[in-house]
């Protein structure tokens, strides 16, 4: 992969060069201690260690979206914003999470419209003890990736950004990404599918699931959770809007149908469902883990439900 070394201060000039054409967002730790994706002007504002609490899925798959509006007989799609967004300082796990959403929403016009307008500038992470990202064969998607004093170019779009900054780059080369990006922190058990199937009757699911208070925090903060609910709203101007909103498989009505039949009536079943989705995947994506091991869900859960502990227990470890 094409790579260059850069000099001190390069990051800020890169930000500067983006400012006119992009809405530049990066993870920034607020005075309340929470890291958020927000507009930045200088590289020093970036939070080097913290992942944004609400991950970057919100940019391509907003928590509340309008799919269409209807006036009289005419359906209209909302006009897309034409200003591209540059996400800067994004950790590898969040880039891998975006790669997963790219698969899920490959045919979704609303997602794709925003995705095509998204510039990704990744940067190296600092793993914490809660990280359990799996090893990877492929690099994550990015346009540029910065690690220490080198950058890597992942796309023609990324290469184009550098033309004005060539003077600050030196020692070009064809170098692999730093190994820690693809090494991962923890291996996923190879026979997970069998372990999962065999676990159906284990008390594990009930014991852990019973604690859940269905607050929805785990899905909201998960970079690859994308369940959604659709609903209609009558707007004050007479139009009707069909909305798409983030949902949560821990909510009791997630699988409830008219007449009261619930296909996942217990918390144990809902925990098992979420675990299955994260670790094994659904439909055509079966076998591709959706969990990037970022540890957000465990940090956000008010009752300490930790998907990595459930994974460890299934693989024969201690009870979570």
């Amino acid at each position, binding site marked *: 992969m094409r790579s260059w070394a850069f000099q001190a201060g390069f990051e800020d000039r890169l930000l500067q060069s983006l400012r006119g054409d992009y809405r530049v967002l990066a993870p920034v730790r607020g005075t309340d201690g929470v890291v958020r994706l927000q507009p930045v002007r200088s590289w020093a504002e970036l939070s080097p260690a913290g992942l944004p609490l609400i991950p970057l899925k919100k940019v391509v798959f907003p928590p509340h979206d309008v799919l269409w509006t209807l006036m009289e007989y005419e*359906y209209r799609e909302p006009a897309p914003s034409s200003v591209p967004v540059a996400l800067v300082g994004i950790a590898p796990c969040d880039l891998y999470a975006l790669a997963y959403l790219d698969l899920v929403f490959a045919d979704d016009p609303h997602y794709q419209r925003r995705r095509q307008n998204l510039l990704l500038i990744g940067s190296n992470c600092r793993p914490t003890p809660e990280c359990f990202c799996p090893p990877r064969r492929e690099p994550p998607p990015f346009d540029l990736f910065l690690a220490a004093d080198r950058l890597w170019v992942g796309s023609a779009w990324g290469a184009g950004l550098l033309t004005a900054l060539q003077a600050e780059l030196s020692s070009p080369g064809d170098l692999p990404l730093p190994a820690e990006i693809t090494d991962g922190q923890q291996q996923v058990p190879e026979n997970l599918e069998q372990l999962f199937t065999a676990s*159906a009757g284990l008390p594990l699911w009930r014991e852990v699931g019973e604690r859940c208070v269905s607050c929805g925090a785990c899905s909201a903060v998960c970079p690859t959770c994308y*369940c*959604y609910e659709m609903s209609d*709203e009558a707007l004050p101007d007479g139009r009707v809007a069909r909305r798409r909103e983030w949902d949560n498989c821990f909510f009791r009505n997630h699988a409830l149908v008219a007449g009261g*039949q619930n296909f996942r009536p217990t918390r144990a079943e809902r925990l098992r*469902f979420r675990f299955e989705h994260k670790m*094994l995947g659904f439909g055509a994506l079966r076998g591709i883990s959706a969990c990037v091991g970022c540890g957000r869900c465990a940090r956000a859960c008010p009752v300490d439900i930790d998907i990595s502990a459930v994974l460890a227990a299934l693989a024969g470890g201690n009870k979570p």
Partner: protein
Amino acid sequence: MMVAFQPVPAVIEAIDKKVADNHLFTFRLSESISVAPGQFVELSIPGVGAFPVSTAAHPGGATFQACIRRAGRVTAALYRLDEGANVGIRGPFGQGFPLAAFAGRDVLLVAGGLGMAPLRALLQALLGERGRVGEIILLYGSREPDAILFRDELEGLAAAGTIKVRYSVDFATELPWSTDAYVCRIGLVTELLRDLRFAPAQTVAAVCGPPSLYGCVLEDLARLGIDPERIYATLERRMQCGVGQCCHCVTAGVFVCSQGPVFSLAELRRLPGSI
């Protein structure tokens, strides 16, 4: 192809109110869509919401026909509309009944309640090429005689000798009808199987009804000797997107909306929790 979230505009063309709370709606679409038996659409009542509903007729095209139960918020809103009202239809979604698997065989249809609606579409498709299948037997269980859907039509077909019809009802003060062509019993639809004369080895079965029906009927049919690969059922789940995105319908890792809703018993046995 990109997912279409906008429905095709449609109007209510006719409402047949013969059976209370299970009206038969005919919609006229502004663009033809083709919904195969066993497939479904999302019917949208603008400003209220949308719900999944199977086609009750075949072929469709510029019209879409569905038998719809008043079951909750959005269906109740539909029941407040009259002929001429505007709605929207998205679809078709899912895998319907594999019609090729029926060719050259006898057909056993087992319906419970509203499950008759999708089976009526299947029946119409089979009757469209009557020569391609052998004997057609319909076993159809309802709560009471007044709840039987498409009754005139079914009895007409039975009287003409085109198909055999066996009804069952949960309650009836008396058994009001029975002829050579069709009989009615009090009890569950499963009881109709008990002394049924048919040739399991050359039969394809399609079952549609409430979840409680599947628990017993599907394995009963296999025990009688029908190949589990040729026993089909359609699953109900809370469906919204129809295209394998929103995740509400997932069962045993499978998107029922797009990989189903029609599955063979052989497949269902590999999907824990599906029946």
